[in-house]
């Protein structure tokens, strides 16, 4: 992709809408391969990974233009290797960052500079894969991470939020009946309905680019084992081709999903999941 940026759109934007603001340029310190972004409504901040520079960047909520982050976590003590995904728990003030070598690093939300993680989850018992997406349910004190047993065998690993070390997940969702093939991108949790909302890549000859088997699936935080999604949204055989990230607009009962092949952001009105 030629041009890195964070574009910000009105929630009602559609078609070829112009962003209401953009964060971009050298001064922003942004880089490519931002596969995670978390908005913190309590502190009015958003946080992204900076993979090539091995950093975590936090901006004020209204950031605009070539604006520098208000905090940067970066340095030898961080253990950051190629941060790609992340999530922020604004209640317990923590940032969760998976690594490429099967661990999840947890930093203080207000960490600044060369800070060491306050705990690390990792080891063979965790079943963690390499830099998989994750999400935190601060209400039920859960950490949900992607895991992978092999190609086409994605798993949702459900941990207690504060787990550390070589700890087994308390539940594992996945298997042939689950329809969990491969994660499309970062997923979302909706604690009020105890849901995990996951973009799932499709299969087929061009699955690296596009598949009409792709969809967004809704599971429960109480699921365990080879459980199918409660709902599928946008497919299979729907409009989605390569769904990526998911965000929730609970007030308007909308689910937002990005799609790489459509190069678009889609808004689904889905009161059933709220």
């Amino acid at each position, binding site marked *: 992709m030629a041009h890195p940026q964070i574009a910000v759109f009105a929630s009602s934007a559609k078609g070829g809408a112009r962003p209401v603001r953009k964060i971009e340029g050298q001064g922003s310190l942004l880089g490519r391969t931002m596969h995670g972004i978390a*908005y913190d409504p309590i502190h009015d901040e958003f946080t992204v990974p900076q993979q090539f520079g091995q950093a975590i960047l936090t901006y004020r909520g209204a950031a605009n233009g070539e604006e520098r982050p208000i905090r940067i976590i970066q340095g030898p003590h961080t253990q950051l290797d190629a941060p790609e995904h992340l999530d922020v728990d604004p209640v317990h003030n923590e940032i969760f960052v998976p690594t490429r070598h099967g661990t999840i690093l947890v930093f203080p939300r207000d960490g600044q500079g060369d800070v060491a993680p306050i705990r690390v989850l990792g080891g063979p018992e965790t079943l963690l894969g390499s830099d998989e997406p994750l999400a935190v349910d601060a209400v039920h004190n859960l950490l949900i991470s992607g895991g992978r047993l092999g190609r086409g065998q994605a798993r949702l690993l459900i941990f207690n939020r504060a787990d550390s070390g070589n700890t087994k997940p308390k539940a594992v969702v996945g298997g042939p009946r689950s329809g969990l093939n491969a994660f499309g991108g970062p997923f979302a949790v909706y604690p009020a309905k105890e849901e995990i909302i996951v973009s799932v890549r499709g299969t087929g000859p061009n699955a690296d680019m596009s598949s009409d088997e792709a969809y967004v699936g809704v599971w429960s935080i109480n699921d365990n084992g080879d459980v199918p999604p409660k709902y599928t949204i946008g497919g299979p055989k729907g409009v989605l081709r390569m769904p990526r990230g998911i965000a929730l607009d609970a007030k308007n009962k909308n689910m937002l999903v990005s799609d790489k092949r459509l190069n678009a952001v889609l808004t689904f009105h889905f009161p059933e999941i709220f």
Partner: protein
Amino acid sequence: MPPVESFPLKYLGAEEVKQLDTRIRLQYMIDAAMFFLRAGLFTALCVLAAAGLISDLGLQWPLAVLNELAGGAQLVRYDHLPPEENEECTYQPIADALGPLAAAMPLRSALMQARIAQGFTADLSQREPLRMIRDPYAAYSAVAVDNTNNEVVLTDENLFNIWVYDRNAKTAPNASTEPKRLIGGLNTKIEFQCGLYIDPANGDIYAVNNDTIDTLVIFSRKAVGDVAPDRELHTPHGTFGIAVDESAKELFLTVQHDNAIVVFNKLARGTASPLRVLQGDRTGLADPHGMVLDTRNNLLFVTNHGSTHQVRPSSPGTRRREEIAGWPLTRDDAVPGSGQILPPSITVYPKDAAGDAAPVRTIQGPKTQMDWPTAIAIDPERNEIFVANDGGNSVLVFPAAASGDVAPLRVLKGPKTLISNPTGVYLDQPHHELWVASFGNHTAAVYDPMANGDAAPIRVIRSAPPDQAVPGLGNPHPLAYDSKREQILVPN
């Protein structure tokens, strides 16, 4: 003919709709011709039947044809069927009821059946989205000129096409420019093509994929529509810029993610290994983007956005991806905590640099005005380099011999230039023209290479009518919802 994938018409881009409209018009013409042909035959047979000639000759086929032309089998009466034994209303899973249709959608029906078994019966998978943010027009990324055939070629990171225009194409004031041809569709493996090279000998198009397909695709200049590439080269993840040394038949690619340059045989294909790799702490490579060769002085110029980290060979068995022999070290080999976000730079190397070679000089510093320098071109006659300065909405011109913190000789920037987030730049030496592709406004524009300041272009190519809004999406991945401002955050 551009590719039209099987999503609903309203999700297609403007050009796709236009081409689809052409197809539909063609189909209407064929249908109309068939209608008149059938009507003529029907009339002739009616006349013959009325005259009693068909019956007199004992021929049956004209009557069958007449019946077929009249619409085939016709209802003359109906009767109620007797009820079957034990008939009752029974629950039948919708997947079973769909029968052959369900067989055509195995995942959907499998999930549906699994949900039914769990007590969920609602299938909401086909609900249409309320709305979609999607630019219906091409977003130009890289640009190159085919002087042999007098064409200009542009990559498009929105609709995923390669667009070929006449080099002198005229653009009406309130319209988009008519292309000569398009290459695009799933068979082409074209998505986020950010680097472009045209073979001066035969017009072959080399288009570099950034980080979604990991494949360099090469098309002959005759390629049109949704065709497979004539040649493919599997590449490291995150390639961006391309340069070719025609005398040595070597092909250079920058690799953003690995802070490396890989050099292949120009005709390499498949999983060929690179001839050499430039990578290491001393190279100064930091999120490298564009690249250009100075063949007179045997130098290689590389633009860098500035982010970097160290790499060291990792333990066997710990790699996430299968690698090709001779590839650079990857993110799997990143040294944790070694990352830096440095100022942007242009690093200059001997053309045959390899290993952990240091640049012979570096252009870097606040005077340079560099802000996400992306593509780069060279004028060997005037010994100047041109830099597409994405973040600065400008094109910077430096002496090729510049070093350190130097101010540009000229800066092309301002509202008259129409330059907006430029990501592609190409110097057409034979015609003494500078091409700039702007990702930010659907425009590729032509300038005098000596242009300076807020200079208007000589002519433009546009994928959209002027002043159309640009979402600027490019491989959107994660999303966040700002509930305070009711806004959607979309990183590229």
